């Protein structure tokens, strides 16, 4: 028999094949298990009250804070979400995130210079969130804002 393989060769190949299946049996769950938390989670959105629109001066972003409960892994805790509310005309309001679009540092409004300033790489944003100087690739992210019953409401992920 020209195409027959030896008993020894057959057994060693069978052992390797079964061993491969077993190793895959560990490796596949290991990868799924380790990468599991990297999956995108679909978070709910909710309207949260911020305060009175009277506090917001025309042309000057005003800082509001709201607390949300967020679950990460096995920990559920309260987190503070900061929203700068801006209005150009006193009627239409925009919520601006205080997270720099460059690398995620927190920006703050500097009153006497009329800019949002990011301390990490000296970036600045204008009062409506547009990039004024520095490395950020896009304007500050925005939140939807509406006014209802004399209250500002912000649409946030919870």
């Amino acid at each position, binding site marked *: 028999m020209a195409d027959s393989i030896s008993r020894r*060769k057959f057994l060693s190949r069978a052992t390797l094949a079964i061993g491969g299946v077993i190793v895959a049996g560990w490796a596949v769950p290991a990868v799924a298990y380790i990468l599991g938390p990297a999956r995108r989670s679909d978070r709910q959105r909710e309207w949260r009250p911020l305060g009175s629109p009277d506090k917001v001066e025309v042309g000057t972003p005003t800082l509001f804070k709201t607390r949300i409960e967020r679950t990460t*892994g096995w920990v559920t805790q309260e987190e503070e979400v900061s929203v700068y509310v801006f209005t150009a005309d006193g009627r239409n309001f925009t919520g601006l995130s205080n997270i720099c679009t460059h690398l995620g540092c927190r920006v703050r409004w500097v009153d006497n210079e009329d800019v949002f300033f990011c301390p990490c790489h000296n970036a600045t944003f204008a009062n409506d969130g547009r990039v004024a100087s520095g490395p950020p690739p896009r304007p500050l992210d925005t939140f939807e804002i509406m006014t209802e019953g004399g209250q500002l409401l912000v649409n946030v992920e919870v």
Partner: protein
Amino acid sequence: MTDGVMGPIDQQSETEEPSTSWLDERIGSRSIIGTIFLRKIPKVNWLFTLGSATLFVVANQFVTGILLTVYYVPSVQDAYDTVTYIDSSLPLGWLVRGLHHWGATAMVVLVVLHMLRIIYHGAYKYPREVTWLTGVALLLLTFMFGFTGYLLPWDQKAYWATTVGTRILDVVPFVGDWLLRAARGGEELSAVTLSRFFGIHVWILPAITLLLVAVHMFLVVRIGISAPPKKED
């Protein structure tokens, strides 16, 4: 090559694969593999696979145990929650934990059966006493793994089983009270107990186990395994 019977190991006559593979030329891998896997063994039966089966489950415990530590947190606040998270939120987390859980039970069953085979065949006798002694140490290590690991989920069963289990030490004459406090790390079962059981379970015991398994395996390869005793033995 003769069919059916494993021929004598002769590196020169192995012609199935080129004898100058890249790795072999550098580190002599063929003779290493040959020494470990192509040993001459006496006529054996399936009972002789119990040691290999144990070794396989040991490998499983190391792999799945390391994976569990990726998320498990050994604190009284987090232990139970992280185990629940592994079980119900992570993809195939239930499988990883299940393999470790059932592997632990399989370990105890297999090491005991393996030991019974050795006793039954008298395989612990000259010249294999050192192999036997390391095996006994590994048996005790297996029990310590089981005892320390049982506490880690930090649920009611874990808590009370360890409360009762450590309390047994108290009946030892004279030093019982001290042994109890040494095991618990204090008077009562506490955050300290959980933390040190974790440390013992994932660092100290595995380190000793790796060492002893290596010695055990080396001796098996070095001395060879014993044949079942004959009538005249």
